[in-house]
């Protein structure tokens, strides 16, 4: 069966619309009666990924691809990129500014949480050349 794909734009530093793409995806999955626990995991990952683009990345694209056995979130941006991927995956590592910390971000838990909640996560980034985070969720145990 062919898959369904949809993308949303994310704008750098746009906190007013931040989170909307994850919410839209969540609503879609609910209408499809995807298991609610799975939706919760996807919601957490989507939101953290979306916020990272808004805060640390550049303008970006939030894509969801749904097929019979899996749901894939692909979140990419054209921002500053990540130099040391192993480093940013550490719990508590954050480069968030004081301003962001005051807004309640910057615990350095976003990426670790995404990794924990996704069945599979791949980060690709070249310094100065943007970042792509791809997370896969299996809908049925194959």
């Amino acid at each position: 069966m062919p898959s369904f794909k949809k993308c949303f734009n994310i704008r750098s530093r746009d906190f007013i619309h931040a989170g909307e793409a994850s919410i839209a995806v969540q609503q879609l999955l609910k209408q499809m009666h995807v298991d609610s626990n799975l939706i919760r995991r996807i919601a957490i990952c989507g939101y953290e990924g979306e916020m990272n683009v808004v805060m640390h990345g550049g303008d970006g694209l939030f894509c969801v691809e749904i097929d019979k056995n899996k749901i894939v979130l692909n979140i990419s941006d054209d921002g500053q990129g990540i130099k040391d991927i192993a480093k940013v995956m550490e719990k508590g590592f954050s480069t968030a500014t004081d301003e962001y910390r005051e807004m309640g971000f910057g615990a350095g838990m976003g990426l670790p949480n995404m990794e924990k909640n996704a069945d599979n996560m791949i980060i690709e980034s070249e310094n100065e050349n943007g970042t792509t985070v791809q997370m896969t969720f299996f809908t049925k145990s194959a």
Partner: protein
Amino acid sequence: MTSEYIVFEEKYCTGCTQCIRACPIKAIRIKNNKAVCITSLCIGCGECIRVCPEGAISSAISDEEPLEKEKINVAIVSPILYAQFPGFMPNDVLLGLKQMGFDHAIDLSYYLEMFQYAVEEFIARNRKTNMAPWPLISPICPVVNQLIAIKYPNLLDHILPLKHPAGLVGNEIRKKLSQEHGVKEEDVILYHITPCFSKVVSDRSGLMAELSYMDKAIGINKIYPGLLQKMEEIKDFELNLFPYEHFSFAPGARGPMWGMSGGEIAGMKLEKVIAVSGFKEIIAYIEKIEMGLLKDMEYIEFRACSEGCLGGPLTAVDRYLAKSTVQKFLKIFGIGRRVQRKKVHMLYEKGWFFSELKPSELADSYYLKQTPLTIEDIKKIENLISVIQGNDCGACGAPDCKTFAEDVARGYADVEDCFKMRQG
């Protein structure tokens, strides 16, 4: 055309589309120029009643039948009722109800306070056990409960499994009064005088099941005119004609305050609490919880009606006027506590406060009443939306183009219902 909550009277409906846009769960359509409700989706928020300019939409709960003389008729009074009468005191309201023929008029305030203690207790224990996920959600508002059950079932375990205060009373009072009057329990008829459809929810689902202890519900707006008339009459009466009664209003503004947004959490010994009211606002917060945020909050008082229950769909006076009346009570009575902690503690240990069914146990039986969309469906929907390129004009009878496209995919609507598609 009726849902369990709402009656649509076709003869008054002009097909103006106000209600289809107001419905927060998009359960109304215009078909053949008349509003039609997808009843299985209706959660009784009352938004459509509020916006209909023709008065074609009204509440489905009624008090048309007169009280049965040979029974013991008991009014269980939500303190929101007091706020409807600016010139009167709570006791006048209770006396007025007796003049209307109720054998007893029971003020809920005391039970609300007991409930508040139970919430504090639940939260204190949860800090140690972490059995329920933070933030916990108030179980009081029926619209919120159903919204979560239908659209966010994975958050049901955030809802406190405590009984609604009216349910706490119901069980007790029936026994007590049947003994007192020497009648059978079923001859004690409990009327929930209410600002909203909370009782109906218990009748139609396992949610808030304790409210089915009430035999009937009467909307405040239905009882208002008759009650006001009786109260005016009493003004000329000798007050001491009425014997003191154990259940009459015990002075304190906690009960009346309950109707304002923030009234439930006011004076609770909790710090990480927040009160949110109004449908749009609560949805924004619920979505945050779903995305794993707000974990540092302990308790959220959600009320679907903006400003709280004083703005309930079945109230009689404007919510801001009602609020000013409550503020007057606050000045007169203060918000001291009357309930003894010890007694509540004992009842809590006995399990008296707990609902028979935890909300989370309902996740499977009470949720999304619509058939699931398939991958094919959502492709069709996306495609149709991009072909229509509409501006949510509503002429097709759906609130917006996306909902229309979904209706088409589900077979509820025909592509040709959209005038843009008819033009080709």
